[in-house]
């Protein structure tokens, strides 16, 4: 590497596969990759094989591995210790009021779409959701069966741990509003109504 740059760039399809694997927090199956690239599995297979070879163990600090029926980037085993050391140096972030509010909306109403959260909070919450995702407190929970199939978000096990909860049922009831924690639909309806009223 340093002092010996490669002369051959990756082909276009392989580059797009690389970008897809890089961004996805979960393994992607060949069919997903093909669909995303508007290609067939037959096209994807050799490009993917090339990518796996490029990121074979020992070549880079990250490797492409096949796990659970899909492909994903992961930190190379012999680099794990460095990454762990780095995580030990990072100081934990606090949750800003905006993050906390967004987290509470996800926790009580999950699964929710980005639009639901924005609706309830009355402000675009893209950045707050990204911040929570980055902290591992929320994650994707599939797609809603509505037009555009937006991503659904829910809280993670890390979230439960951080708040000392055994399960989501242990979320404190919203006593002040005489609602049980289970009455999610009612809370949702109320929040949506409030959001609508706030807009007018």
């Amino acid at each position: 590497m340093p002092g010996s740059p490669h002369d051959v760039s990756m082909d276009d399809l392989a580059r797009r596969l690389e970008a897809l694997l890089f961004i996805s927090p979960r393994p992607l199956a060949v069919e997903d990759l093909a669909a995303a690239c508007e290609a067939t599995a037959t096209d994807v297979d050799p490009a993917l094989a090339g990518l796996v070879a490029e990121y074979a163990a020992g070549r880079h600090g990250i490797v492409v591995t096949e796990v659970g029926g899909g492909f994903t980037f992961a930190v190379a085993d012999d680099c794990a210790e460095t990454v762990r050391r780095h995580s030990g140096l990072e100081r934990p972030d606090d949750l800003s009021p905006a993050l906390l509010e967004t987290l509470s909306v996800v926790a009580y109403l999950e699964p929710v779409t980005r639009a639901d959260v924005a609706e309830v909070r009355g402000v675009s919450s893209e950045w707050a959701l990204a911040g929570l995702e980055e902290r591992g407190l929320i994650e994707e929970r599939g797609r809603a069966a509505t037009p555009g199939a937006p991503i659904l978000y829910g809280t993670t096990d890390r979230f439960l741990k951080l708040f000392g909860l055994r399960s989501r049922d242990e979320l404190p009831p919203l006593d002040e509003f005489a609602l049980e924690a289970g009455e999610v639909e009612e809370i949702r309806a109320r929040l949506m109504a409030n959001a609508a009223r706030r807009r007018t």
Partner: protein
Amino acid sequence: MARGGATAPRPDAGRRRWTGESGAERPGSPGTAAPGVDLDLDLDVFDGPFDLLVTLILRDEIDIWEVRVSGIIAEYVVRLADSGEFDLDATSQFVVLVAALLEMKSRLLLEDESAVELDELDPDEAARQLVERLVRYGQFRNAAAMMGERWEVHAGRLYRNAPPPAALLRRPVPQARFAPAVLAGALAPLLRDPPQPDTSHLADLAVSLVRELRRLREVLGREGRFTFSAVAPKGRLERAMTFFALLELHAGGEARLRQRQHFGEIEVTRVPEPAVAG
């Protein structure tokens, strides 16, 4: 809504005209015909339909200084009450126009205030300071255009946004670092109904003032003169309203007020028609 790729530049990036919170724009432009609000006005400076008045003001043919906007509102409310009908469209249009007039007028008032301050300065110095300020502001506007261009290029870039796998974290997740009650506390403000704006004072005052005005006009028309104590109701607030109504009659040139001594009786006399010359 998925947008186009991050690489597709928009041609007018960052060069959009500045609008937003601009204090520089006038509501409506000169010569714009005002949308129809059916109201005949009889003001000191103007006798005719409201639409015409707005048009004349926008064309700078009538100075908004001279126009009592409160008088226009009072007339409108009286007419609305008399007609017994409520046309939402027409009323909204009226409110929009009146708001525009008030904005123009308040802007003039503010301008005048600063002009007075500036008068105390050397006129050249005042002009120089204003130019300096606008030049400084212009710099930031140009910088904002540059930022808009950068945004077009960079804002769409995709970074990885996944948490590190637990196995790679040296520091385990801090157990129960936050109390769950914090979550309920964060959600609570969103669950509460937003407070309804309290408009009771507006409605009450407007309606009772208008009613009071009408009542006093009747008495004045019938009797030609009366005293405050003869017409004033018992309640404190109601008396205040009567007093305001008297002031309105006086300001409108319909009645003459006279008080011979402090805290003494107020005598009200009708001013013979025509109240307004020209």
